[in-house]
């Protein structure tokens, strides 16, 4: 043993050196690339650490002058304004309800990420209960909760509400649209195809705008309703048009034999759809569906433009008023962290599912 130790140690050290050289500086050009990229990385890391930690002010009582003097990030703005950022105009004393409502949505999303919950019935039940609970907490009016109308909703709960409602309304719409487009009857397939393509070619903003401003012109009075619900409907329609194409792709990827076998067994149209086709189509379309959910979540931020106080808009007001006008970077960093945590988590989950399904495919 004592004899072999040095002979082992020497090649290993040379190996490491060689590997480093091979990876980072195989040619002079590669060395230059390493140098440039490394410098950029170190510069970014140093700037960030210096700004966010070393020269930052953390004392919650510190004001504008103290922050200016320190020169770095001014975190007291978050301590002073976090309730406005997170809950917007929601009545101050009732904000515990908004917080609880956010937790409900988080729980619903976490639950539906568990593979054992994947069944049409279970998922529908989870999402319906979650939405009802959320609505009860936010809107109040029952069980002694003070009513809070939709115009006072704001911040994170509003963002989550728009996302959840878009998904809950948009998903059934997407399934219906996909089935209609797949129909063998031209009188149904063609209008559905036209609708899907028309919506997909328009920017979401113009659809939200149309729903907020044009729909009241063309709807009968009893259907106009709150602006929030019209805008959510627009977002759901947009989501449905994209998701319908994803589901249709899933349908097309199912081997023909599956439907033929189901027909041969004498299953009716509905049984074939619910038991054979839809589960497989969803399984095949799962990665793209998760991706679409991620996009839908990010796109909820667009409702700012039609005048809602969602997370982004309440962040805007948090630094536009009073003494914090200089602290926009800190406030945006705070809400960016919230968005990033959600979106990054969901997209990592999508990648995990894809890998899991690939493994399943290889085994069979």
């Amino acid at each position, binding site marked *: 043993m004592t004899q072999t130790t040095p002979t082992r140690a020497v090649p290993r050290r040379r190996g490491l050196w060689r590997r480093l050289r091979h*990876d980072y500086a195989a040619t002079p050009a590669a060395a230059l690339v*390493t140098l440039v990229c490394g410098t950029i990385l170190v510069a970014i890391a140093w700037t960030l650490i210096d700004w966010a930690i070393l020269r930052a002010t953390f004392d919650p009582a510190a004001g504008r002058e103290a922050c200016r003097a320190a020169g770095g990030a001014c975190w007291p703005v978050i301590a002073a304004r976090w309730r406005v950022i997170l809950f917007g105009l929601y009545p101050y004393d009732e904000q515990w309800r908004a917080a609880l409502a956010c937790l409900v949505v988080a729980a619903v999303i976490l639950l539906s990420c568990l593979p054992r919950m994947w069944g049409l019935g279970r998922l529908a039940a989870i999402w319906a209960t979650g939405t009802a609970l959320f609505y009860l907490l936010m809107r109040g009016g029952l069980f002694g909760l003070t009513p809070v109308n939709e115009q006072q909703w704001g911040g994170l709960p509003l963002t989550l509400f728009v996302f959840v409602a878009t998904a809950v309304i948009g998903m059934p719409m997407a399934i219906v649209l996909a089935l209609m487009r797949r129909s063998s009857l031209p009188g149904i397939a063609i209008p559905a195809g036209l609708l899907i393509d028309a919506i997909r*070619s328009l920017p979401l903003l113009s659809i939200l705008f149309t729903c907020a401003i044009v729909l009241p012109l063309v709807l009968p009075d009893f259907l106009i309703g709150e602006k929030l619900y019209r805008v959510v409907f627009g977002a759901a329609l947009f989501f449905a048009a994209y998701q319908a194409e994803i589901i249709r792709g899933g349908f097309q990827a199912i081997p023909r034999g599956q439907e033929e076998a189901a027909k041969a067994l004498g299953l*009716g149209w509905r049984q074939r759809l619910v038991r054979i086709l839809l589960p497989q189509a969803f399984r095949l379309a799962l990665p793209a569906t998760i991706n679409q959910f991620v996009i839908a979540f990010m796109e909820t931020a667009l409702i*700012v433009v039609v005048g809602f106080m969602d997370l982004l808009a309440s962040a805007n007001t948090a630094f536009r008023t009073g003494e914090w006008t200089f602290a926009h970077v800190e406030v*945006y960093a705070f809400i960016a962290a919230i968005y990033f945590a959600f979106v990054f988590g969901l997209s990592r989950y999508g990648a995990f599912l894809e890998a899991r399904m690939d493994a399943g495919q290889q085994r069979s």
Partner: protein
Amino acid sequence: MARLLSFPGTRRQRELALQAVFLSALAALVLGAALTARERLAAQGLTSGFGFLRKATGWEINFALLPTTTADPYWWYLLSGLVNTLFMGAVGLSGAFALGLLVGLMRSGRNPAARLLGTLYVELFRNLPIILQLFFWYAVATALPNPRQSIEIGGALVNARGIYLPGPEIGRGIAALSALAILAGAGLAVGILAARRFRRAAPLRRQSLAALSLAAGFAVAAGLALAFRDPATPWITHPRAEGLRITGGWRIQPEFYALALTIITYGAAYVGEIVRGGLKAVPRGQIEAAAALGLTAWQRFSRVTMPLAFRAMLPMLANQSVWLMKATTLGIAVGFSDFFMVVAGSINHSGQTLELIGILMAGFLAINLTLAALMNRLDRALSLEGSSMRPRR
């Protein structure tokens, strides 16, 4: 389907009846909406129709490539907005493709430092809402020092009102015409490279023809600028601060560059992923064969890998371009007068909601169809016989 409806008749009759019911319900819906709208508009004293397009607007837009005044009619404003959108789209798309190519190459290479940088870039920009990024850049742009304390960088002035670059003093209309000439030259060059008609021509001839048309575009632009410049002004004027005013030079408004920067950086994250997918889709055998033939690393990359990868990327790049064109509508959030913002403004001022929404839809449909047709054309022109290579989804 048979069990779904318990109506009498043959299967064919039932299917016909189902379609008829569906279509008439649809028609009733549209008709009902149209009638309600007519009634409401009549109550507001508005007449429907496109006559308002000839009326003067009476309000201003804050960014226009075409010369606009408040006396101009609505159709000119709408056209001006469309030109702004196309311009923003051209800047955003070319920037996003260039930066995205760099990011994709960094992520696909072997160098760990470059890969880390590329990965950080993609994960950061792709996982944040684009409108949040836009607000961020706009807040940064407008929080720059005021004109009195402008930052000077090599003759250019940077302040909260914009970036002032040194440049020749030419009118806005001439500048737009020059830009159009350059674009036409570039478009012609791409057309010559892609067109089937020139396919049989020797590649060398094709390339020189394309280069010629590109150069012609620049020459016409330069000629226009020369012919219409004011001889009293110097060749290049530098921006100078006079108190709060800044004279001379070219001003780039914060609304414009914040939006352009957002579209470029956000788009580049997606284009980078498309580039990476395209490079991954190139069969290893092709690269190994090129190496076996003794091609150098650069030759392998530029003659084998890139041409194949580009063909694989093209359909997804087409989707991405359409997407980025639609993203220009975000201009309304910071006050950049793109097509959508002009339409929204027109709705506010004229009240002709339905007509203007129709124009908006027609405009975007036209942009999308043109882009899709162009990309399809390019795809067909570049397609290789016997190769149906597409990246894995």
